C-alpha cells in the first residue's frame, strides 16, 4: 500500500469515528484542540485503525501521540 492510499484509508477511519469533515484530517491536526476528540475517542480510533490495517497498537505506544500525523506514522511503521 503506498503512502497516499494508506492515508486515505486512515482518513476514512478518522472521519467515521471522530465525525469530523474530511478536510480537517490533516497531519498537523491535534486530536484535542482541532478535532475535539478526548482520550476515549482516540482509543476508539486506534481500535478502528487496528482493524482496518490489521495491526496491533499497544497502549504504551500512544503516549505522546497528539496529532493525526503522529498517529499515521505509528500506523505506517507497522505495515
Amino acid at each position, binding site marked *: 500500500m503506498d503512502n497516499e492510499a494508506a492515508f486515505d484509508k486512515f482518513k476514512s477511519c478518522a472521519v467515521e469515528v471522530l465525525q469530523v469533515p474530511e478536510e480537517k484530517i490533516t497531519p498537523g491536526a491535534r486530536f484535542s484542540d482541532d478535532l475535539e476528540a478526548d482520550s*476515549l475517542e482516540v482509543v476508539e480510533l486506534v481500535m478502528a485503525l487496528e482493524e482496518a490495517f490489521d495491526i496491533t497498537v499497544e497502549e504504551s505506544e500512544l503516549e505522546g501521540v497528539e496529532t493525526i500525523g503522529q498517529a499515521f506514522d505509528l500506523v505506517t511503521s507497522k505495515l
Partner: protein
Amino acid sequence: MQFERRGRRRVVVTGLGIVSCAGIGLDAFFEGLNGPAPDGERRVHDFDPSPWFDVKQARRADRFQQFSVAAAQMALDDAGELDADPARAGVVFGTGVGGLQTLEDQIQVLLEKGPRRVSPFLVPMLMANAGAAAISMRFGWRGPCETIVTACAAGTQSIGAAYRIVASGRCDVVMSGGAEAAITPVALAAFRNMTALSSSGESRPFDRRRDGFVMGEGGGALVLEDLEHATRRGARIYAEVLGAASTADAHHITAPSPGGAGALACMELALEDAGIVAKDVRHINAHGTSTPLNDLAEAEAVEKLFGSPTPPVTSLKGVTGHSLGAAGAIEGVAAALTIDRGQIPPTAGLEDLDPEIHLDVVTGAPAAFEGGVVLSNSFGFGGHNGTIVLSSI
C-alpha cells in the same frame, strides 16, 4: 388546596417532557393514551435522536440515555426560563437497568472479536446513572445528581426523591423522571422465562384474561420547582406535588406481599405525607401492569384504603405496555396532564373486569376529571413501592 406543610416548602410541576410509544411530546402522548392499543412490544418506533444529539453524541449514548435527555430537554423547554442558580438545580433520574442494549452488543463484540475490540465507551453508556449525568452536563446543573434504580418503581421514586430535595430547601428546581430502553433479546427472553410477559402479547390491566405484561420503553421528565420560585418568575403550573412515599414489602424478590400489604402501606404513608385522607383522592393512576399477581395485589390495597366505590382508577399500560423504570415517570407526566387538562385516559385492553377486582376502572373513553388529588403508584421487583400525590393548585 392548602394543607399543613410542616415547615416544608411547597413544590410544583412546571415542565413536562415525554418520549413514549403513545406519542413524543405532550399533545401526541395524551391523545395517544386514548388508544387504540398498538400490537406487540411497545417500541417508540419513530424516535429520532437528532433533535437532541449530533451523530457522534448519539453513537456514544445508549437509547435509554437518549430518551432521558430528550424527555428532560422537552421538560426544560416547556418550563420556560427557569432563572435558577445552577448550584441549587438538581437531577433525580431513574432507570430499571441502564444501557442494556449497549452491553449486549459489546458482549457480542467480545465473543466475536476479543477483548481488544470492546468499546471504551461501554462503561459510560451502560451505567444506570448515564441518563442523569447527561442531563446535568447538558444543563450545567451542579446540585445533587442522582439515579434511583428500583426496577419498575424507579420513575415514581425519582419524582418522590426530587420532591423531597425541593421541599427541604436544598434545591429550587430538580429535573425528575426516568427512562428505559430494555426491549432487548436477552431481557425479553428473561422476562418470558420468568413468566412475567404476556404469552398472548396483549396488555390487559385488571382484565379477567390478563396473562402478563407487554414490554414498553420510553422516558418521562417533570420539572419540580419551589412554588415561590415558580410564582416569582410567572411560571405555568401544572400541579402541586403534595407528598410522596417509598416502602418495601420485605417479602419476596418478585411477588407482591399478600393482600397488597406493601402497596397499602405506601399509599397510606403518601397520604399522611401529603396531609390528606383517603376521601380527598379523586383519581388513581395505577401501576396496573396486566400481570395476574400485581393487579390483584394493587386492587386489594386500593380497596382496603378507599372502600367502595374506589376513586376512578386507570392504567396506561394497556397502551404503553410496561416501560419498567420509565413507567412511573411516564405515568407521572400523565397524572399531571390529567390535572391540567381535566381528563383521565381510559384503560385500554380491559374488556372483562376480573370479578375478584372491585375497582372503578375508567374504560372505553376518557373520563372527566373535576380537579383535586391524584395518586400515582409504582411497584418494582425487589418489593419496592412508590407513590406520589399530585393535586390541582
